[in-house]
């Protein structure tokens, strides 16, 4: 019996080991050192890859010191998954990890990081907490009173919340009081800080004021305050149902809000539950049924928005409503008009825009269907000697510059071990792959782009653009900051007759402006991008050279996949295409060497740099949100899509019951391999009626051979032109390894300045006592790393003076005295206006290098003359 049992045991263990071992390919290259050449050959069948690895030691002559390193600073990036931030920090401390790219919001974890000299972090500012109020009523269907239908009561809720207290008590100081919808780290907040700060002072915590307003309004609505201090309506207590999220700081915020409501006489029914439990109630129930009165909302911007004008429509109107709660919004006609104008960019100058913002900010606070509560900071912890650029809104994971800047301080080479909360969460493909930020961080490592977003200002910077010329018709509010773009205002922009303006998916040919608009057409802007002279030296990871075929294929797929006449039509792409065609006016290839492309476009951004760089269809670089689009690797996916063997998008794959195309692993590889073989056999050129003019048969042959070699060597079809190529994909084990691309053309230090953000440190000094009627001077000292802040990086230094009641008395710009030192001069006439007693001056400094403004206040006493 024992022998039998032992045999069974042994067999089970062996089977388990074999099954587990089968999960990875037998041989994989791990690291490629400078002194090694790893040669791999594979025998490929339809679905199986058998590898042999031969490691050949090659003696390499030491690199002369003068040779500049190209490409990435580090040799290898290793990505894994860690769900718990405390665990990640423990691994950082134990030297088992170098970077945790997931944004951490736990103040206790931050304390651990703060206490460890070997660790550091960078904040990101894209999240905020708010309170959504149900505006239905004044009574619900069952006759209960809804106080939040009353705009003045909603407005009074602002005074009821001590936001500074919440910053300390709920997020451990990792946040900032928030009063208006504009994000404190985004350019529009800095641009209008002088308008916003007085409003913040006006709506500062004042419970008695809130109580007073509520009393007046509740009585006007027919409610009465009972002897025990509780509001009643028709003889019943006014019970407010609070939907309080239980997962994070919003539970404390919701409880605090409930406590305050109870303090002014309301009875609160606190429903503390998870997102999934509460979402159907506030998102889908009929607001007039009164299933809820307030909901503790939370929001997050995955990217910095330089133009936050649509925020008012999104927050106070039902113009972009997606829930029944938002559909019930009922703003005043004035607020609706202002929000709509801002949403649709209906302004002709920055001055006009400023006026609209000034109105919207005031009206938004008066409306207060959403009460803004806190801007919350999250951070990503890392080793202190690791440099990497991090986006102000979404951290390192959302930073386009992370692959270009990641570096061990003062070193070249090395390995960086990075973790995130979940990687390999879904398929990678260049059209509609998984777009979670965890995946995009990895994908960005493999992609290069024509323009990269400055993670600290949101302005686009040229990476593969020699220059760009932007023409717009006069009267449009657009400006430029950087020299790589020229901006010209013209009376009229005609779309030339030979411009490609649409796509005939049946004939597979572009439709020209002359064909579509025989009478001519104009556009509001024209973007001319000139690419570098050495553009065609750029190589895809499989060794293929970048070519016109990549650019034109990219253009074609933009218009084809969402076109119902296309054999690869995908309904989920149609909506995007329809949106594009609302404002797209055409594209024209002016020359191919150097490559110059003109785009005609009605949509105009506030910044000329972003007019070029923010839109795929203005810069035309062959990448999408989810991956690089080399024409040949894209084509084998396209062939699978047309054959209905697999689909680029999740929704189409579900509809057809086929695989969602995954270029790096899984059952998709066999499908792609099959189509690669077919493409090789046919020497297939996609969209041949058009692309055969740009892709020769020889190029197609070379490309497919390169891709087959790449698949044979690496076991996947993912190729980009980025700083890293994909070396290992270990799906079940949950790790991805990327190696430095040795063919990347740029020097490693090209983006070195972006490893750290130039945040201003602002100190204020001045006289403690000011005599009314006498001049007074206050100094603002701006520094960065203990040195004066460079004058050319300072955008503005503004000051505001408040009296003891917190009312704004005066404001103005501070004058530059010396580098890093600015002075606010209050003339004798100015000081005469100040009331005797405590007053306060606040400086607001904004930088051209970092969008986020900084504030510093100084209290002084005014004595009578």
């Amino acid at each position, binding site marked *: 019996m024992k022998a039998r049992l032992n045999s069974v045991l042994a067999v089970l263990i062996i089977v388990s080991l074999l099954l587990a071992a089968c999960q990875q390919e037998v041989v994989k*290259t791990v690291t490629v050192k400078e002194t090694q050449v790893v040669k791999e050959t594979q025998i490929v069948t339809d679905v199986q890859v058998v590898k042999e690895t031969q490691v050949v030691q090659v003696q390499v002559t030491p690199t002369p010191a003068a040779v500049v390193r190209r490409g990435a600073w580090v040799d290898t990036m290793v990505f894994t998954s860690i769900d718990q931030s405390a665990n990640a920090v423990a691994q950082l401390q134990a030297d088992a990890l170098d970077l945790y790219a997931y944004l951490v919001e736990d103040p206790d974890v931050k304390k651990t990081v703060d206490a460890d000299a070997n660790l550091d972090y960078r904040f990101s500012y894209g999240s905020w907490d708010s309170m959504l109020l149900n505006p239905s009523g004044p009574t619900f269907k069952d006759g209960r009173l809804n106080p939040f239908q009353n705009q003045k009561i909603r407005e009074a809720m602002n005074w009821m919340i001590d936001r500074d207290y919440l910053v300390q008590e709920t997020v451990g100081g990792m946040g900032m009081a928030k009063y208006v919808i504009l994000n404190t780290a985004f350019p529009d907040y800095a641009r209008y800080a002088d308008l916003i700060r007085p409003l913040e002072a006006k709506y500062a915590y004042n419970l008695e004021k809130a109580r007073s307003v509520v009393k007046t309004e509740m009585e006007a609505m027919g409610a009465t305050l009972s002897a025990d201090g509780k509001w009643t309506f028709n003889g019943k207590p006014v019970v407010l149902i609070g939907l309080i999220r239980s997962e994070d700081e919003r539970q404390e915020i919701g409880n605090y809000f409930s406590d305050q409501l109870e303090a002014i006489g309301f009875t609160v029914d606190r429903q503390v539950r998870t997102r999934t439990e509460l979402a159907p109630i506030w998102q889908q129930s009929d607001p007039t049924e009164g299933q809820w009165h307030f909901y503790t909302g939370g929001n997050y911007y995955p990217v910095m928005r330089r133009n936050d004008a649509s925020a008012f429509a999104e927050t106070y109107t039902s113009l972009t409503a997606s829930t029944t709660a938002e559909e019930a919004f009922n703003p005043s006609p004035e607020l609706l008009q202002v929000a709509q104008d801002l949403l649709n960019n209906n302004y002709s100058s920055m001055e006009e825009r400023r006026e609209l913002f000034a109105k919207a900010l005031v009206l938004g606070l008066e409306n207060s269907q959403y009460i803004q509560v806190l801007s919350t900071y999250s951070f990503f912890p890392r080793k202190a000697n690791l440099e990497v650029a991090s986006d102000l809104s979404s951290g390192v994971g959302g930073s386009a510059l992370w692959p270009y800047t990641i570096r061990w301080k003062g070193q070249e080479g090395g390995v960086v071990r990075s973790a995130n909360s979940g990687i390999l969460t879904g398929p990678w493909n260049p059209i509609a792959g998984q777009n979670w930020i965890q995946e995009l961080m990895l994908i960005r490592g493999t992609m290069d782009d024509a323009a990269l977003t400055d993670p600290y200002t949101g302005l686009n910077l040229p990476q593969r653009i020699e220059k760009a010329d932007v023409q717009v018709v006069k009267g449009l509010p657009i400006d430029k900051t950087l020299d790589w773009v020229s901006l010209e205002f013209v009376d009229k922009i005609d779309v030339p007759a030979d411009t490609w303006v649409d796509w005939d998916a049946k004939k597979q040919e572009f439709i020209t402006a002359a064909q579509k608009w025989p009478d001519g057409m104009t556009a509001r802007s024209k973007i001319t991008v000139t690419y570098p002279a050495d553009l065609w030296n750029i190589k895809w990871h499989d060794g293929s050279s970048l070519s016109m075929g990549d650019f034109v294929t990219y253009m074609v797929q933009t218009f084809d996949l969402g076109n119902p006449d296309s054999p690869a039509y995908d309904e989920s792409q149609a909506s995007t295409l329809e949106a594009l065609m609302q404002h797209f006016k055409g594209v024209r290839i002016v020359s191919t060497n150097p490559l110059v492309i003109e785009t005609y476009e009605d949509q105009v951004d506030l910044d000329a740099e972003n007019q070029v760089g923010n839109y795929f269809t203005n810069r035309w670089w062959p990448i999408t949100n989810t991956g690089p689009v080399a024409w040949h690797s894209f084509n084998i996916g396209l062939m699978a899509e047309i054959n209905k063997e697999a689909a680029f998008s999740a929704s189409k794959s*579900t509809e057809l019951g086929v695989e969602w195309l995954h270029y790096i692993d899984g*059952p998709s590889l066999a499908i792609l391999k099959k189509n690669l073989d077919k493409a090789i056999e046919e020497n297939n050129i996609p969209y041949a009626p058009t692309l055969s003019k740009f892709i020769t048969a020889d190029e197609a042959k070379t490309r497919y051979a390169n891709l087959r070699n790449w698949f044979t060597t690496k076991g996947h079809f993912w190729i980009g032109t980025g700083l890293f190529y994909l070396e290992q994909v270990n799906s079940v084990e949950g790790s991805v390894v990327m190696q430095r691309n040795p063919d990347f053309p740029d020097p490693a230090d090209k983006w070195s300045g972006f490893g750290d953000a130039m945040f201003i440190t602002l100190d204020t000094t001045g006289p403690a006592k000011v005599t009314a009627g006498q001049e007074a001077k206050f100094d603002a000292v701006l520094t960065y790393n203990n040195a004066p802040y460079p004058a050319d990086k300072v955008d503005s230094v503004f000051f505001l003076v408040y009296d003891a009641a917190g009312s704004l008395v005066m404001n103005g710009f501070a004058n530059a005295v010396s580098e890093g030192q600015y002075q606010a001069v209050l003339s004798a006439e100015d000081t005469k206006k100040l009331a005797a007693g405590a007053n306060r001056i606040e400086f607001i400094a904004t930088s051209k290098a970092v969008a986020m403004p900084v504030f510093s206040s100084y209290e002084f006493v005014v004595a009578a003359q």
Partner: protein
Amino acid sequence: MAAVAQAPDMNANVQVKKKNSSAVWRIVRYALIRLLTLFITVVAGVFLTVMIANMGGYVDRIRMGDIQESVAMGLRGNPAYNALSAEERQKRLDAEIAIQAEAQGLNRPFMVRTFEFMQNAMTLNLGRALKMTSDSGSRQVQAIILERLPPTLLLFGSSNLLLFFAELFVALYLSRRYGSWLDKVFVTLAPVSTAPAWFFGIFLILIFAASLRILPFDGMVDAPVPNNLWDYSLSLLRHMVLPVMAVALNSIFLNIYSWRTFFLIYSSEDYVEMAKAKGLTSQDVERNYVLRPTLPTIITSLALMLIGIWTGYPILETVFNWPGLGRAFYQAIQFFDTPVIVGQTVIFAYLLAITVFLLDFVYALVDPRVRVSQ
């Protein structure tokens, strides 16, 4: 005479044949009834799973909320929509929500989908996940399960099997040395096993990974994954040490205590005392008079333990970042991914039913007292 003499033999043969045929018929009938009962139980279990996984249809509202939220966020963050009028934006928003809702089947009545789930589940047509993908990117539920099965079998199959037999041997040993200091040690430590495995896991990580830094924190193998099978296996074993220890601490003391008490009870039966009195060796007594009658219980425990591996250890796998079935099941619940939940459950239900069915026959094989009733 011969004929007369043969008559009783023939009658006896006929009677034996009749008896055998009756026994076969009884076994077949028993098996059929048992199978039918188990099938009905599986159907009921799967139906309940479908209903619970969908919260009686409430999950549809949650899914719809998810879709609305994600589409609205995506639209707001997409500069391509900036120039659209409010009406156009709303049109795009509604269209995108409709596409995604249709892709998840939310445009069809809940009960229709419930019966489809039932039919597909019972025929083991596991279908496609709604949100989850397998580690290698496929939405096939089968792929999601099959990818996670080997790591689960490896870690929990091998550790549970090893532990099971170790526990049996130690328990037998202790039952022979009732009251010894070692016996007292195990009795004293038995309550330790009441803490869950993940609890031990966290402490083990803190001690061996965070403080001593001699074992990895989590994961299945090192990253980058080692080049060759030997290094891979070594790395795998290093990563298995802590979770196996956690599983062991979670069960070993209590199970040894239970088995040892179980054996002690059997050891004090009259027939065991009689065997000892007859002078049989303690090995013979243990094998034939203690282990033999307890075999059905041991086999049942073993079978149910093996089946239990299918559900994995969700929290322990999460603590150790182990890519097992339990974690997949946990993720499926988080995502309200009904096909994955139903897929895992229906396979578990079938395995359990088959095991229960087979155990009836195994009992009869190992224990002569077990017979199909007349």
